[in-house]
């Protein structure tokens, strides 16, 4: 029996180890739970919402919380709780698509640069340097302003060609705008990370050996580079998602984000800033939600950091 136990302990992988460490970190687990709920709400929120997030009750505006409206109603008599749920969809969508797009771009550029080396590497890294050389918020605002009309016109043309009502939906347009701007500033971080991993892994003896044995670059990537980069990637992805949620709120506050009547936490916040002194319930909901989700991302990120860094003493 003893030998069996010993054997099991030895065969524990890095990931099992990490998971153990992560599970012991209460705050990180709590963060994960909050984020899971947030993503779930983003997915099913509109169906479980007690009201249509657009439906106005012009006879019941600015009402404080009641049993009918758990968080009260806003300046057009819309149910704040339902709008928060819908805003979760906006936030989740922004967080996910931004991260997905920038991650895809980053992996593409990073591996290409890392594997090709030489001039290609220099050029790609120079480009990503230039993206990072401009202050992020400024770049987001610039891209957003510059892309708005072209993207909207593109959707209009697509509709005329396809007659697909999807392209009529201006909600998607706003999302496309926001996450293309956010993704365009986030990819160099991922590209750099991947490239670094590619470079360091490909110098390892076992990779050199694998190459000598005729393994293709693709296989090297899949077998060695990707698993080794997963830890830092997961951490970067978490951080990026959290940042995207806050950036979207900031953009909406500056009037560059999701346009009315769509709901986003940022627009809910900025709309309520006119009235919060007399109607604090307008502000509390979205502010607390953003705060908690943000906090959850931070704790989750910390937890992952601790769990995936084997050098860490805990």
């Amino acid at each position, binding site marked *: 029996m003893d030998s069996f136990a010993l054997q099991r302990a030895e065969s524990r992988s890095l990931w099992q180890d990490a998971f153990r460490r992560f599970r012991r970190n209460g*705050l990180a687990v709590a963060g994960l739970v909050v984020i899971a709920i947030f993503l779930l709400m983003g997915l099913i929120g509109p169906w479980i919402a007690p009201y249509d997030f657009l439906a106005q009750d012009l006879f019941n505006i600015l009402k404080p919380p009641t049993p009918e409206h758990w968080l009260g109603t806003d300046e057009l008599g819309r149910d704040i709780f339902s709008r928060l749920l819908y805003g979760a969809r906006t936030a989740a969508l922004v967080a996910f698509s931004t991260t997905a797009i920038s991650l895809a771009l980053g992996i593409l550029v990073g591996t290409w640069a890392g594997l090709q080396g030489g001039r290609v590497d220099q050029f790609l890294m*120079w480009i990503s*340097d*230039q993206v*990072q*050389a*401009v*202050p*992020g*918020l*400024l770049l987001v*605002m*610039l*891209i957003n*302003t*510059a*892309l*708005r*009309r*072209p993207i909207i016109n593109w959707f209009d043309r697509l509709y005329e060609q396809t007659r697909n009502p999807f392209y009529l939906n201006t909600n998607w347009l706003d999302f496309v705008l926001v996450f293309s701007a956010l993704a365009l500033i986030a990819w160099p971080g991922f590209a750099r990370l991947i490239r670094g991993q590619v470079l360091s892994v490909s110098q390892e003896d076992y990779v050199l050996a694998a190459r000598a044995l005729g393994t293709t670059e693709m296989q090297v990537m899949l077998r060695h580079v990707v698993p080794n980069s997963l830890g830092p990637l997961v951490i970067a992805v978490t951080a990026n998602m959290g940042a995207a949620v*806050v950036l979207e*709120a*900031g953009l909406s*506050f*500056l*009037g560059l984000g999701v346009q009315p009547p769509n709901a986003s936490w*940022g627009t809910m*916040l*900025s709309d309520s*800033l006119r009235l*919060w*002194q007399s109607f604090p319930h307008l*502000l509390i909901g979205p*502010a607390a939600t*953003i*705060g*908690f989700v*943000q*906090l959850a991302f*931070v*704790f989750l990120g*910390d937890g992952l950091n601790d769990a995936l860094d084997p*050098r*860490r*003493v*805990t």
Partner: protein
Amino acid sequence: MAHYLLVRLLRWASGLVLIVFVTYAMMFYGAGDPVKRMFIDSEEFADADPVIMQILQEKYGLDQPFIVQFRNYVVNLARGDWGNSIRLSVDRPVWEIVKFRLPISMQLGFAATILASLVGIPLGVLAALKHNRWLDRLVVSSVTFVTAIPVFVTAPMLLFFLVLVVDVMDVPYGWNGIFHSDVILPVVVIALGPLPIIVRQARSAVLEVMSQPFVRTARAKGLSERMVIARHMLRPVMTPVVTTLGLQMITLVNGALFVELVFNIPGVGLLTIEGIRTVDYPIIMAVTIIGTLIIFVSNLFVDLIYPLLDPRVRFS
């Protein structure tokens, strides 16, 4: 050293050409003509007159094709002429605006950096020393929570609380110099931005160092905890923190954007918002160039100070 600086500068300048070109192209092809937008938007021009529009477009050279406009801009820039504001501050030389506004943002940024480090580093060290105890958790989560709510919400709420509820101050407004009491609240709010990062950096740096063999040796030699910290840990802890501060410089200048908006501080952040809102080409170009310059200088600063803090690192 001089060679190193020169190479860095040349590399930055080569990138700048690309950035300026792309920004100008984005404005020209994406955002449109500022004079046209002015006529669309402004209440003053409710009675739009095509004759006026045409004359203004001629005046600012906006009727020229893209490549001519861009060439003119670059040629003028090389001569030190940043152009005149088209819409935001009609006909005022952009350089004059920048010359006034940049120092304000820089001063706020520096004050906030100092404040954030003075508060953040001790908190981080404290949290690390009490690692995984309730004080650690309290410090990390409270710092994080305060900053988790967007600054454009916390700033007005703090303002209303301090001015109207506890009544300890007047509404800070505009700019009366960095030593005027009006800057306290804006600086505090700006400093909140990088605070959690500094706290966490300091905390993890201390944790890292504490696990190093030489600290354990020092402890084993019987040095008191305080001596261990003072002798062996300060320098290794400072290294990542200074790096973070350098990288946070732009967050400060950028994050100050919302604070400048709320308190109407005439800094570069406010100029950025208003320039982009009005699509005022010369202003947008100017804030972009300044932004890249700030990033360049702070990165350079980190790279130069690093070898001083960590003798193992050399310039390359």
